[in-house]
């Protein structure tokens, strides 16, 4: 308990400092000019906000990997453009009813942060939408449009796993990166 609680306190402080830095950055962007007055004002506002609206503890075990972050950003931008164009074509095509599917994707890394970020990345790309999540088993339920058959569904499922892998390689810990080698989790229905 004693050794664990000091580590917990340290990560809580780290979370708070990261949150405060983000808030100060937003404050500075709002003002648009850098001056010591805005910096001081930002720190005061961030302190008040974090005191009044305390954040729930986020488990962030890893560390940022610059190369992984860059790779994720480039692929994400590419996916965004490609999917937007595809969906625009789909919208303009006459006399065609697009088929869709709702698929279950149980993620390999049991982390709330990875679940959130993967969900955000998947739903920012047009053509896929998070319908539901299950936090306990870190499962995303994704509605995907423009899939013609089961093969396309499986292709999309692999893409989501690839997104998860890129996110974990960008921000995950060594243990989490190791988990990516595990086989894709089997369906929960069999063991329930």
């Amino acid at each position, binding site marked *: 308990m004693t050794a664990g609680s000091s580590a917990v306190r340290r990560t809580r402080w780290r979370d708070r400092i990261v949150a405060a830095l983000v808030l100060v950055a*937003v404050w*500075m*962007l*709002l003002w*648009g*000019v850098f001056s010591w007055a805005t910096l001081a004002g930002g720190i005061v506002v961030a302190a008040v906000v974090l005191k009044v609206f305390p954040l729930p503890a986020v488990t962030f075990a890893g560390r940022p990997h610059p190369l992984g972050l860059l790779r994720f950003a480039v692929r994400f931008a590419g996916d*965004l*453009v490609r999917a*937007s164009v595809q*969906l*625009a074509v*789909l*919208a*303009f095509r006459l006399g065609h*009813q*697009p*088929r*869709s*599917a*709702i*698929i*279950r994707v149980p993620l390999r890394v049991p982390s709330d942060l990875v679940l959130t970020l993967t*969900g*955000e990345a998947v*739903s*920012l790309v*047009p*053509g*896929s*939408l*998070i*319908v*539901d*999540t*299950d936090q*306990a*088993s870190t*499962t995303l*339920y994704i*509605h995907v*449009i423009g*899939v013609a*058959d*089961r093969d396309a*569904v499986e292709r999309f499922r692999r893409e989501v796993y690839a997104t998860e892998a890129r996110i974990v390689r960008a921000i995950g810990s060594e243990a989490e990166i190791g988990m990516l080698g595990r086989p894709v989790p089997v369906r*929960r*229905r069999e063991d*329930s």
Partner: protein
Amino acid sequence: MTVQTLADLVAGACLVSGAVLSLAAGVGLLRFPDLLSRMHAATKPQVLGLLLILAGAAVRLHNIIDVTTLVLVGVFQLVTAPVAAHMVGRAVYRAGQARGDLLIVDELREDRTDDGSPAR
């Protein structure tokens, strides 16, 4: 060709493609058969279309105060759009508005309990 014309060309291209994406979203919103499909159309102007137009505006304004505001708008949009889409999408599914005949597979239905939440 001066830097000015080049910048205007880039800005113009960004603005026009952003507007085209918005129009595509309008068309999709009207034509797609069910609500979940329409929500896909809705994410286009909210994400890439908006980013393109903000980029175009940033190139035209190229003034640090204005550009920081534009960056802030873009970041807010990127952070909030998925959350809003998730909330609405979940409400749509739980209200039973997803059209089963358009779905190839519905793996959520298999896992669902009666109150609409995924089964544990």
